[in-house]
């Protein structure tokens, strides 16, 4: 058991759970999805990605790739949010909310794959 492994797994799983807590709720109801949750999910996802930098093993490369996908999806979701509210100056409608939430749903899938890979890797080590 090493501290590095704990921190690594902690951030990977936290990225998944935060992503999930933003995603859960009615798809188009702005009351069910707060900006704080999206913010936390993005920050933790970024940290998890950086943690995976510089790992040359094959599974490491796969983990990095899934993390990058999650980042991309979450950044896209925040951009949609910021663009709709501040640039287009629209009120938050169920339509926009559903776009944001479904984008984060994509990130959720990527995070799920990432955590699954982590579990698989740990299981094959058998130590």
């Amino acid at each position, binding site marked *: 058991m090493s501290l590095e492994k704990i921190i690594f797994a902690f951030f990977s799983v936290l990225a998944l759970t935060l992503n999930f807590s933003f995603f859960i709720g009615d798809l188009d109801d702005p009351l069910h999805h707060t900006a704080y949750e999206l913010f936390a999910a993005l920050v933790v996802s970024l940290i998890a990605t950086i943690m995976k930098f510089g790992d040359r093993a094959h599974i490491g490369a796969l983990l990095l790739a899934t993390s990058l996908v999650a980042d991309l999806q979450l950044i896209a979701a925040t951009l949609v949010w910021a663009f709709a*509210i501040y640039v287009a100056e629209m009120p938050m409608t169920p339509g926009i909310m559903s776009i944001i939430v479904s984008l984060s749903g994509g990130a959720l899938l990527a995070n799920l794959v990432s955590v699954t890979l982590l579990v698989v890797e740990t299981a094959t080590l058998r130590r």
Partner: protein
Amino acid sequence: MQRILFLLFRRLRWPLIVLVITYSIAILGLVLIPGIDDQGNPWRMDFFHAFYFVSFMGSTIGFGEIPYPFTDAQRMWTTVIIYATVITWLYGIGSLLSLLQDKGFRQVLSFARFTKAVRNLQTPFYIICGYGDAGSQLVHELSSRGINCVVIDCNESKILDLEIDGIQIEVPSLTGDAADSETLLAAGIKHPQCRAVIALTGSDKQNLTIAISSKLLTPKLKVICQSDNLDNAANMASFGTDHIIDPFDVFGQHFAMMFHSPSMYLVHQWLTSSSDKPLTDFQDPPRGNWVLCGFGRFGKSVSHYLSKEDIPTTLIEADTNSTEAPKTTIEARGTEADTLKMANISDAVGIIAGTDDDTNNLSIIITARDLNPEIFTVSRQNLLRNNAIFDAAKIHMTMHPETIAAKYILGLIKTPLLQDFLELAYEKEDEWANILLSRVLGTIENGMLETWEIEITPSRAPAIYNGLLQGQAILLRDICTDPRDYKAQLSCIPLLARQDDNRILMPNMSTHIDDTDRLLFCGNAQAYRQMRLLINDPQSLHYVQTGKDYPGGYFWKKFFSNESDQEIYTK
């Protein structure tokens, strides 16, 4: 390149994580702290504006408090995060800079650059291990002829020397251990254009390792090694090293040849000298008693070859035990007048200073000359940088082992047939060499002699090759004809023809040329250029054979050529 990227990311992991965390705390704080808008209503900053504010504040651009002037609570928080973000940035940039200065990282960078430069080489090249005196001379000679080299040396300052030496073509170089197979692979030992590995590291053991690894990695590749030791040379030969050069042995042979057949010695000197140096004059070493100082590798070789020529020598050696010098040896350093007097220097005809210390060698020569002004002087020069003082001492013959090795290897690369020629020529009489010398003198104009080789292959001599393919008979005479005037001969002498396994010394002008033949010539540089033109250009070849120019272009061919020329052309 990939390795560099991974290394970069790995090292920058922590600075980046710290940056993300600091930013997120700063943004979160700004969003949570209540503010007041321009109408005095309570207001909270949103994530978009918080991110914008932290971005310009953290990078110290600073646009002011937006969108509304801050409350005191917000200002207090801003004060905290200004310091936090600036310090984080300093940490991140500092880590990046220290990484770029890191020796390990720079090594990875230069290794990647070297590998890429070698991979991109398109023309034949030679791997030279060791950029010492011999290696640098060889690299200069080869690159001045447009031949690519790749240099490996474990000493970083030698690689820096290479960079400031001002070589016209790019020479990929790497600081590394050439005995390491990884380094050899990066230097392109498996590259299809690699022609040979040349080991000149100055250490026999290392040269041996390079030879072994090269032969194991690519058995067909030519390996050329310098070796100063008979045991190591035998070991190198045992696993197929193609050429092993012992400069002391080479010198000993030449030195003895000077007594045996002075003309032959001169033939050898002239043909192997580099083309940009004027030819040496005839030197007649006197026969009589010689004094030899130093019985190391040099002294052993010289005394061995001198005894073969029955030339009496008196030996002087400071350490008679470890060098296993003969009993008659005078045990002294040789730099003192007393010792030299003991060796009967006033009756001797020549002195050879052969210790491994340049100062001692010069001292021996000068002392000997004081005692006997007429004496013939020969000295070993250990360091190339002592050239000036050795020149000033006006010694009859100086022997620099590294130069001998470089010259020898250059000969192997440039004119491999020269070895065959010299081998056959040594069996001839002095008279034969004399005739050759006078013929050579007749061909050269300004004292510069060029030696070259041509090979009848589709790429090297297309005109000749295609001519032969069409059934034309091409004689050696044709190749030696001036392509500007078919009645005149080029100023060159055919020295050797190699047809399959037959070696013909001084081939007759009416010799028939066949494909895959290899021919060795010497003559002036002008003749070399004309011959290169001739073997590449079918029109010139036709002209020297018939004395007629055939029309080249479509228009001239159609309207102005006569039947017989047309025939030859369309064949």
